[in-house]
């Protein structure tokens, strides 16, 4: 019983820390001058549905979208998480930047936290818990997974 409790506590702590990373990332981006958050109606309902039926191997997600011509302070962004991003790309010509953090969870699940910033378009902060196998299939053959999804 105590082992189960320990595992449950560890999972809760990990989930809480991941949500904290997402929240602090959203705070940093939201504080960027020139960017304002776009609220998408029904996102909580969509999240609830995703947690129930896991479409395309997605087990959970949180998303925050921002609009406007703003500059994101990436030094502050990197300080929002103690983890090192697995990928960080930046194009100085266009200002496009992507930062991805990832960590394996139990089983085949991986948690990803992503920040994509395009000064000419939107800025997106996304946290997703996805099945690694489905993700790998999607990367290897995106058309096949999309076909699976569109099937009734």
């Amino acid at each position, binding site marked *: 019983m105590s082992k189960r409790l320990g595992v449950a506590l560890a999972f809760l702590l990990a989930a809480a820390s991941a949500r904290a990373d997402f929240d602090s990332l959203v705070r940093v981006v939201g504080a960027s001058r020139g960017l304002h958050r776009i609220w998408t109606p029904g996102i909580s309902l969509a999240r609830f549905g995703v947690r129930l039926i896991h479409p395309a191997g997605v087990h959970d997600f949180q998303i925050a979208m921002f609009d406007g011509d703003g500059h994101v302070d990436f*030094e502050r962004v990197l300080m929002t998480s103690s983890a*090192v*991003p*697995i*990928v*960080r*790309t*930046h*194009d*100085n*010509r266009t200002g496009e930047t992507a930062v991805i953090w*990832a*960590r*394996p969870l139990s089983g*085949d699940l*991986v948690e990803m936290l992503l920040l994509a910033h395009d000064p000419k378009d939107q800025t997106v902060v996304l946290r997703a818990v996805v099945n*690694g*196998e489905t*993700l*790998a299939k999607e990367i*290897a053959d995106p058309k096949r997974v999309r076909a699976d999804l569109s099937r009734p």
Partner: protein
Amino acid sequence: MRKIIVTLFLLMPAAAWAQNGRIVLDLPASLAAKASESVEVTLDGSMLRFAARFLSNDEEEVRGVVRRLEGIYVRSYEFDSDGAYDRSIIDHMHAQLGPEWKKIVTVQSRSRENTEIYTLPRGDSIAGLVIITAEPRELTIVNLVGPIDLDKLASLEGEFGIPRRSKHE
């Protein structure tokens, strides 16, 4: 004298790390700021083992290599003009590679593209590998940590942010 001791003290962890196959890739932020494009990949052992589970059966060779690796670290920068980066960065990388590291490949082309490959031998195997490619407008440093079979190394080309040898492939 105090400065020398402090410098030695600061270099000690980096040197110890390098003997483990990993080099310190904390390149100055000004490098990314000057670059027109920058890509940084940091994959540690746990993430690599996780990723290896989902490689397809066609990638059996890659899976075999990746499963044993403890880290893949890539730093790649492209610049709009020649000589936009400080070449002392390369000297800093060289300084981390102690006498145990062996340079196995040096390529110097007319287009001033220099590639160096260093390995850290451990018995019959290799515990680490560093590739430094310095072109007038591009700098790429790749560090693979963990047991590496050189025969199978080519299978990692184009995977996990590791550049292909030929851009025309």
